[in-house]
């Protein structure tokens, strides 16, 4: 009997759902057993790369640094019965997993995410403020949330996840290009400066609270889901993955509403993203891994998975046909619909950024330096210089 190990992390109930599917798989393939090793997310980010580099990695892992770890992925193509199925249904995402563009098939998205804001609709109602509608700009939202907050004495008008990934969507809306003509990263341009300046000003004028972006260092992630769930903030810029969690933690305490990505001069886009389940090159059982991956990507299994976890499908066919989400919460359903609808309007730059192997270098450089600027350790201009230096240095180091 062959044992396969799958390293997994959980944001919600996806582990349990996956376990259910795996049980069925084992039933169908008695000679293969699959063990789900649930680790803290920190291990996926920090330990997994080292383990993979040392050759001690698992057979399959759920990862978020899609491109960065691509050198360790297994190309499943030779082992798949129907590679075309994969190309058709996972086409755009396969490139994220293979930034070299060689056409390898290494895995699929357990979850597609789209970034975008949530608002506390109830607060708007209580304050009697009109919610900005489709096509509203970030400035409109800033003004509206400020109005609500001051009317109801809400401490934080607007909160964003402390994450470069979250910022890049709006930044692209502001006109950031992220890459130069040759496709090399060019982090700081006019659009990015506008975005950074905007965030900086919001922190200065109290639209955003320094607690989030100012209170930790480096690239540390901090979310505002608690503040949002406790109605401490009017608008929360995060992403589709919060839906299952809000459905349980907020429930019907107030009306939490996902709204379409606000606009900038260049676009109205969020960032795509997500986690992928990928096969690892280090495996001793590529055949069995392929068997498992094929099983997992069967349409009905994926449909069950996305449906139960309330994840936006990373399967084009299912995206088209729609997944029946296992929720009777109208707010969750609305949010899912909103994010799913946003997928077509995502800017190509955003896709390119998400597919770029070293995108985290850019994210981190931006968020850590901007954070330092916000607390006053650097001026914004110094911060821009440092961002570029950081990116340049890390890429150089990697190229050695």
């Amino acid at each position, binding site marked *: 009997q062959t044992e396969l*190990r799958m390293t997994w992390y959980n944001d919600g109930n996806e582990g349990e759902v996956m376990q259910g599917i795996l049980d069925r798989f084992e039933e169908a393939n008695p000679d293969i057993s699959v063990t789900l090793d649930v680790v803290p997310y920190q291990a996926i980010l920090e330990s997994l790369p080292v383990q993979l580099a040392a050759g001690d990695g698992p057979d399959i892992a759920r990862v978020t640094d899609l491109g960065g770890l691509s050198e360790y992925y297994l190309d499943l193509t030779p082992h798949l019965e129907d590679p075309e199925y994969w190309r058709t249904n996972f086409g755009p995402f396969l490139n994220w997993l293979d930034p070299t563009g060689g056409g390898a098939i290494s895995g699929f998205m357990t979850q597609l995410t789209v970034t975008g804001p949530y608002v506390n609709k109830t607060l708007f109602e209580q304050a009697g403020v009109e919610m900005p509608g489709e096509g509203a700009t970030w400035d409109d939202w800033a003004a509206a949330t400020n109005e609500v907050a001051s009317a109801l004495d809400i401490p934080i008008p607007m909160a964003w996840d402390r994450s470069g990934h979250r910022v890049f969507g709006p930044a692209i809306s502001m006109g950031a290009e992220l890459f130069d003509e040759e496709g090399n990263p060019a982090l700081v341009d006019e659009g990015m400066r506008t975005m950074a300046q905007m965030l900086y000003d919001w922190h200065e004028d109290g639209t955003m609270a320094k607690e989030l972006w100012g209170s930790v260092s480096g690239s540390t992630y901090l979310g505002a889901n608690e503040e949002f769930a406790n109605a401490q903030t009017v608008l929360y810029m995060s992403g589709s993955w919060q839906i299952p969690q809000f459905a349980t933690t907020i429930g019907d305490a107030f009306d939490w509403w996902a709204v379409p990505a606000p606009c900038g001069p260049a676009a109205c886009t969020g960032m795509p993203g997500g986690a992928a389940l990928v096969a690892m090159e280090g495996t001793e059982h590529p055949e069995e891994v392929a068997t498992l991956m094929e099983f997992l990507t069967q349409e009905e299994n994926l449909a069950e998975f996305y449906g139960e976890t309330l994840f936006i499908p990373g399967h084009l066919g299912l995206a088209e046909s729609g997944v029946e989400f296992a929720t009777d919460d109208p707010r969750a359903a609305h949010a899912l619909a909103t994010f799913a609808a946003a997928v077509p309007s995502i800017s190509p730059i955003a896709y390119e950024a998400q597919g770029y192997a070293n995108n985290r270098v850019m994210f981190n450089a931006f968020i850590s330096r901007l954070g330092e600027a916000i607390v006053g350790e650097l001026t914004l201009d110094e911060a821009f210089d440092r961002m570029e230096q950081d990116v340049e240095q890390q890429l150089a180091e990697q190229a050695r």
Partner: protein
Amino acid sequence: MADATAQSRPGVLAMLTARRGRGKLHWTDVFSYIYLGLGVLLMFGPVIWLALSSFKTPAGLVEFPPTLLPLGQISVPVEGYDDPLLLFSVTTETGETRELAQIRRIGIVRQMVDPAAPDERIDVPIDAAEPIREFDMAWENYTDPLQRFDFTRYLWNSVVVTVVATAITLLINSMAAYGLAIYDFRGRNGIMLLVIGTLMIPITVILVPVYLVVTQMGLVNSLWAVILPGAATPTGVFLLRQYMLTIPRDLIEAARMDKASEWAIYWKVVMPLAMPALAVLAIFSVMWRWNDFLWPLIVLNRSEVYTLQVGLNAFQGELNVQWHYILAMTVVTLIPVVVVFAFLQRFITTGIAASGMK
């Protein structure tokens, strides 16, 4: 004879008035007891606060101002509704307060019902209703995360790691300490310098090289990978050696005259006498091993070898900070430490005092 009566006054009063010198109550006496009182508050308070908080619901946790005890909202069964409904204290427009149960909330309005008169529906603006609460321990903070994984297995792994590692640490460190304390040999100073030198290297900075060594030995994903690397602690050698130096040489020589082999001297004479220092090291070792997180996270990626610390943190996802679980799990990991402390604290005090060093 005010002093004499003070001496024999019993109980708390005596405790409050007892003091070092004779003569009048010195300002230092007053200061001492204020300091000690504040000390107890400051040292114990936070831990107790943590323990209390760990029984609060997520909503209770973020409540401001916080309540001292964990409270839960009361729900009552109401005729005509399948599930019990949550009870609120409602201030009506006329200013009187009533206890109403909520059916559902729509926008900024709660649809409510009087449990006594279930037929009539009342609409109440949300800010006019206050939840009614009572003391309620949110045990689910503990049971939920513990059910999410194989708690007993991880616990067993943690216990194995802690016990085996502590045993190995005590054995090899005490042997080394014995060698360095009892014998006078060429190279001893060199080894002591090495020990003291490495005493100061924080493990965090050599994580990767140690991982390389462990990989090369093929230990990854076995408990040995967690047990072995920290076994030869310079701290332990240093502590034990300093203590063993205080054992009179005569005893060693007496044992030699008594035909004891060097090994017998080590374990029958020196080890029992080094008990206080061994106990201190044992306590520290248990503490280190039990709480170890960063290192197991790197070398263990298979669930059958997870330790409790890795397992408990596995519910920390990419995007959640679930304080109610974190606090509860913190309390869980605290329990063995508290137990060890309760049993061995007199060893700690005599041990460290006697070894005069860490």
